[in-house]
């Protein structure tokens, strides 16, 4: 059973993806993560409960399945590091922030419960960082880029790329602050380190998101932006 070597969890590098494991966050930060995520989920349920279009139902399933699979596909970035998709931006662009939060919560919770990717104590923080933050930031910045997105298909794809990149960078800042507040690593150390890696990982996120949005626009443009409580018109063909 649990023997002296406590390292393998992290240094056994073959397993893809690593979300925040237990031990990285202090109790108050972990608890705050749970509270913040619970509030966001409650709002998301309230918003979708009133307005979720029926076409959004299968799209939620498709998004959840694709984002889960895409998160397993770690891609190499500079310096012997890999990155993986988060997916919150893609979900937000297609489903709006509220349904996106629910999809991302499902993905991250499943990863913790079934795959032990991310600690159960840190689950609230993982949901908040990778799901809530990316979905809300994704929807917000996509709305801000709407003039660009409305111009052409190329504009939509470019906006998707930019928004996806931003969400990864923002999530890495949030994660850095969580680690710093937990006393795990000083903010002056962890923030530049996380940013330095995630500005590159964000490029991968941007490319995958742009490709997925292009694919949807080419095949089923009617499905992009089906949750009416967002700004779906921006992406509709």
């Amino acid at each position, binding site marked *: 059973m649990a023997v002296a070597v406590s390292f393998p969890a992290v240094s056994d590098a073959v397993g893809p993806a690593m979300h925040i494991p237990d*031990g990285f966050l202090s109790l108050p930060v972990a608890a705050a993560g749970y509270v913040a995520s619970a509030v966001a989920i409650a709002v998301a349920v309230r918003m979708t409960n009133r307005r979720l*279009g029926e076409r959004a139902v299968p799209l939620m399933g498709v998004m959840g399945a694709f984002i889960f699979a895409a998160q397993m596909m770690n891609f190499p970035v500079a310096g*012997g590091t890999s990155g993986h998709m988060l997916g919150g931006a893609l979900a937000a662009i297609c489903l709006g922030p509220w349904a996106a939060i629910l999809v991302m919560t499902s993905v991250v919770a499943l990863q913790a419960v079934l795959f032990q990717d991310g600690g159960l104590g840190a689950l609230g923080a993982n949901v908040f960082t990778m799901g809530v933050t990316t979905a809300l930031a994704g929807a917000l910045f996509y709305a801000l880029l709407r003039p660009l997105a409305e111009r052409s298909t190329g504009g939509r794809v470019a906006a998707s790329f930019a928004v996806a990149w931003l969400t990864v960078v923002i999530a890495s800042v949030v994660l850095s602050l969580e680690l710093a507040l937990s006393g795990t690593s000083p903010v002056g150390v962890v923030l530049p380190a996380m940013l330095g890696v995630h500005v590159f990982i964000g490029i991968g996120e941007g490319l995958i998101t742009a490709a997925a949005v292009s694919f949807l626009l080419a095949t089923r443009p009617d499905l992009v932006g089906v949750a009416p409580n967002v700004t779906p018109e921006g992406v509709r063909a």
Partner: protein
Amino acid sequence: MSTLKRYAPLLAAGVAIALGVALLSPWASGSPDGLEKVAQEHEFSDRAEDPGVTFIRDYRFPGVENERVATVLAGAVGVLVIATVTVIAGMLLARRARAEGEPRSGTGAR
């Protein structure tokens, strides 16, 4: 249920794409990811605690010798479970939306 029936081809196509991605997952980069790398370089990776109970650890289906097969199986299980969970969640929310009497476009069919 009619929702599910009408959109079954879409759901099937989307899940098939996700399963296709899962098939490629054994070839994912094995390098540490962003957080893991930073944790190693700044020496807090040893703070990570082992999870008490494990089911499909490291995205490898337990009991399968071949690592690639184990990874693909884990991915497939995850894809199917997450698709089920999210569709059920969506159906609960959408159905309630309709019960509240909001007009829905395109509900004339069946």
